[in-house]
């Protein structure tokens, strides 16, 4: 029988052939993006590939992941739902408001969302939080992976409107989407500074680590609102 270790609420490490990250499948029997299903004593786990998920990589890079089974989450940059599906597994009794701007990705994401009651798909520009203010409630976590040059500003605007006082921001910064020419290190320094100071409300950075070897030139950031 595979060896199972709890890494964080709802997030497991399963030892079967090799170490694998996994969540408990909220939609038993169904696979979302080609991942493996592993059944152990009646529970079904879905493996989670950190190379295909920034959040998965953050888990393995030992970030504190502020997610529990009744978390309310605003997920910016849902894409076709690879990572959202795991967030939905973890926040099984919570709510995952999932914003995605590309209608092509939303087409695929809808298939996932229609099978999971805790996902609320929103086709909108994450840079314009007003456009979904009539839908989204205050949340405990904003996860953001939008690959936009103004991502610090986007995070601040959404946090101002939706983030609870004690809530967290988890952010993935892709150096290339800020500036294709400058060095990733410089970019990261600059972006962290922007998060701290450039916009209202400012953030307090709790953790900032690159996501190597799972993602090249990506910085993961955990932050909360400045008091």
């Amino acid at each position: 029988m595979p060896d199972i270790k709890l890494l964080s609420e709802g997030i497991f490490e399963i030892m079967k052939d090799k170490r694998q990250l996994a969540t408990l499948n909220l939609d038993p029997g169904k696979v979302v993006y080609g991942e493996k299903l592993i059944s152990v004593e009646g529970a079904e786990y879905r493996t989670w590939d950190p190379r295909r998920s920034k959040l998965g990589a953050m888990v393995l890079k030992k970030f504190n992941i502020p997610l529990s089974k009744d978390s309310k989450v605003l997920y910016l940059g849902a894409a076709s739902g690879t990572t959202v599906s795991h967030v939905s597994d973890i926040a099984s009794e919570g709510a995952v408001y999932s914003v995605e701007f590309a209608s092509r990705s939303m087409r695929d994401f809808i298939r996932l969302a229609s099978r999971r009651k805790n996902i609320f798909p929103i086709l909108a520009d994450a840079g314009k939080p007003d456009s979904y203010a009539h839908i989204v409630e205050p949340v405990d976590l904003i996860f953001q992976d939008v690959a936009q040059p103004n991502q610090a500003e986007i995070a601040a605007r959404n946090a101002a409107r939706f983030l609870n006082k004690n809530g967290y921001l988890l952010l993935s910064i892709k150096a290339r989407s800020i500036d294709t020419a400058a060095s990733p290190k410089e970019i990261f320094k600059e972006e962290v500074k922007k998060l701290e100071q450039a916009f209202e409300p400012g953030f307090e950075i709790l953790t900032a680590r690159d996501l190597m070897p799972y993602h090249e030139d990506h910085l993961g950031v955990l932050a909360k609102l400045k008091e």
Partner: protein
Amino acid sequence: MKINTWFGSLEVGSGGEILAFDLFPKGIRELALRSLSLRSSRENLPPEGFDLKAAALECGFVASLSEYYSLLHEVTLEAAKLQVSEAITPDQRIVQAVEALDDINETTNSLSERLFEWYGGYFPESGLVGEALALFIVKYGSRENVPPDDPLYLKARDSMGAKLETADEALLKGFAESVCSLYSRRKQLEAYIESSMEALAPNLTTIAGPMLGARLISIAGSLEKLAAFPSSTIQVIGANKALFKHLRARAPSPKHGVIYSHPFINTSPWWVRGKVARALAAKISLAARIDFYSATKDLSLMGELEEKVRKIRAANPKPPQKR
């Protein structure tokens, strides 16, 4: 203060207490449509940190949290589906056709080469390539079937090619038929792109030609994005690799991307191509903006560009001296 939510309009006091409300009917589709109509309203937004679900409970819109989430799930899903169904705009249809054409071109070339190589074992002297070869094979199969009144009769009769067995002949004819099918697909796609471009972007089509214009839209992603690009970007669209190299390693800035295929550039002597590309890109940018914002045809654009190119050429009759 009045605020709009997905389930109704509320009148809220300064402490956040609900003074009055006007709830929407609970139909999924209707709620979805209302939700979509609220997207662009700049007024009556809920205040920061406003708890929508508590308000919905308080107004009696739903009886429980689980009803709230269940309804919101259906409504957001329906709204997203409605948005997706409207996402395919006329310029996106052109983009799809351009992408399909690229695939067709690539596969047609690869299968044509295979046919040439394969049939070459049986009639290497035919001198035919591409669609002409495919049509020839569909018509005759083995070179033994070429009749005396065909211009290739003598070459077929005296060919050093091997004898084509019946089973292989059927195979080659079938393969050639598929190749012909791809060639007619190419023509159909080109005709579609030409007529769609004329309707969607008449000015861009005049300046760039329908195929180049469509390719520019396709690489930009949409006519809107193309219209928003500065002309210096349009000049190098499609030269991504060279541009990236330029930004990273201070290599020389590329002079032109896909617009290189424009006759004004490739018929110009090499030493004025950069200048012509700059003039062309500026006019393309203008044309795309007119097309996106007004969609009326400006008949003077082409004449202005021709005049500009004429002047550039006249001012630079000779190549620069090497130093």
